């Protein structure tokens, strides 16, 4: 079964939900990631796809772990150094160790985190496992990244949009095809947030897997997975931060962003963190 055949709501209509049906016979993005991280919330089809992919590109296991480590470092930076107390985590995935609110609340117990996902099973897990401490808060929004109106509307009730918010979009933009204009989606989110807000993202890099591996990977995904993945170039990643100031070290591989350990390999993900400047004041990296 390919994604093309899967019944999806609002297929083709930009800005609408393309929620995946709950189907354990095809590999699912959130469950693939769970399995790569050593979790048990995955099914036979997920494991088969991952095992096939790892034979072609073994660095994808490392890539998933480094993405998780990047989440930790980026959220810690945002809470501890940038003083952010409000987070909008879009593409939450199945909870594992070191989730956004845990990292943020370790630095600032009063931190508020809104989790957004379009996968109903992921949301059920998130509601069960991503419980806030007493001082802070966590909430969950059932929405597709393409539906920025719903996300902003609901997040605005939980977060104070007159104060800075950090938006995290980790390993999610690469399932949004160009036809849904991912750059415009990100711009719409950031436009609604005040100066001093941040964007952190990670994204499959078009140049980071050699051609043969990329083709093999795409072949498995096309045949066995619910979501399709689009690698984008460093330049395209950079464009997500148009009008923002990139935080050092700019667009780099996930393991290279303010590392706290020696990387054992090279991942296939670009990442960056950027800040929305005060009106008229642009810092240059």
């Amino acid at each position, binding site marked *: 079964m390919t994604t093309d055949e899967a019944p999806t709501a609002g297929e083709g209509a930009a800005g609408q939900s393309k929620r995946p049906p*709950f189907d*354990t016979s095809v590999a699912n993005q959130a469950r693939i990631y769970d399995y790569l991280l*050593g979790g*048990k919330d995955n*099914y*036979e089809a997920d494991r088969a796809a991952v095992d096939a992919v*790892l034979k072609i590109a073994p660095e994808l*296991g490392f890539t998933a772990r480094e993405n998780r480590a990047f989440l930790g470092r980026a959220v810690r930076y945002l809470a501890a150094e940038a003083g952010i107390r409000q987070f909008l985590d879009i593409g939450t995935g199945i909870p594992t160790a070191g989730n956004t609110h845990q990292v943020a609340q370790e630095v600032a117990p009063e931190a508020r985190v809104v989790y957004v996902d379009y996968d*109903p*099973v992921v*949301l*059920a*897990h998130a*509601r*069960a*496992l991503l*419980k806030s401490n007493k001082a802070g808060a966590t909430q*969950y929004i059932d929405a597709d990244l393409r539906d920025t109106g719903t996300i902003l509307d609901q997040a605005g009730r939980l977060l104070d949009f007159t104060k800075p918010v950090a938006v995290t979009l980790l390993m999610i933009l690469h399932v949004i095809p160009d036809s849904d204009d991912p750059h415009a989606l990100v711009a719409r989110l950031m436009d609604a947030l005040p100066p001093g807000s941040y964007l952190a993202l990670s994204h499959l890099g078009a140049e980071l897997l050699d051609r043969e591996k990329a083709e093999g990977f795409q072949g498995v995904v096309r045949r066995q997975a619910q979501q399709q993945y689009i690698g984008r170039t460093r330049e395209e990643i950079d464009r997500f931060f148009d009008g923002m100031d990139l935080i050092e070290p700019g667009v780099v591989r996930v393991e290279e962003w303010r590392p706290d350990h020696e990387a054992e390999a090279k991942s296939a993900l670009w990442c960056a963190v950027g800040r929305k400047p005060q009106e008229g004041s642009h810092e240059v990296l």
Partner: protein
Amino acid sequence: MDSVGPDSEQLLSGLEDSAGDAAVLRMRLGSQLRRLREAAGITPEEAGSRIRGSRSKISRLENGRVKLKNRDVTDLLTLYGVTDEALRSKFLTLVTRSNGPDWWAEYGDILPAGFESYLGLEAAAATIRSFEVQFVHGLFQTADYARAVTALMRRAAADEIQRWVSLYLRRQELLSRPDPPHVWSVMDEAVLRRPAGGAAVMRAQFRHLIEVAELPHVTLQVIPFASGAHAAGSGSFTVLRFEERDLPDVVYLEQLTNAVYLEQRPYVERYLEVVDEISSEALTPDETTLFIEQVARET
């Protein structure tokens, strides 16, 4: 995927001070034996024949289902090439401890065999997910509710019922353990609507549910009648998951006369699929609390 190789330094670390029940220790030791066997490249059949048994004996032993015998463990450690005397003797000390009595031993006279092994699994689990069609999950029952349900189900005499109730309360200490499992229970609305022990007992039970739902490691969800028929045509079941990567999930099915344990992956995954599906269809935990409050007002 990291493979967990048997590093003799690390092998038993954490096990010695694991305060838990004998049953928990048994599962952890079994899991270590599996790693040692796999690292030595020995099949379950070979290992089984070395200890005068079969493949399934090894599987029961590695999954912590049976008590370990010193003689078997000694032979297996030799077969797996564990020669370090200090390590071997540490392993055997832990084996002895894992054969110590479990807290429920004193209830041996009333416990059906199937339930006894469930208590061991429950104590060892990191996550307990259940779907309940008729009764509140045992870990969340009040004493009065448990009394009413036991009187109904066990056809027991008054003094025996009292022992069942105290067993249930002892079992619930799991929830206040320093490192408690995450207990995630989805209940059919029928559980709330069918009064066990009368309205007063039910109202107290509702208050208790609302209270435990506040615990960080407890998730309660109700699937209301209004959401129509659901995927769990099977009736109540519990899925137990363990921290160790190589311990398989177990599905526990309590039946009128016996209990069934499913461990084979395709079967287990079918239940996981159903429990994932109902959890995503049921009321959210926040909505559930409001719903229970509403039912309480109507009771």
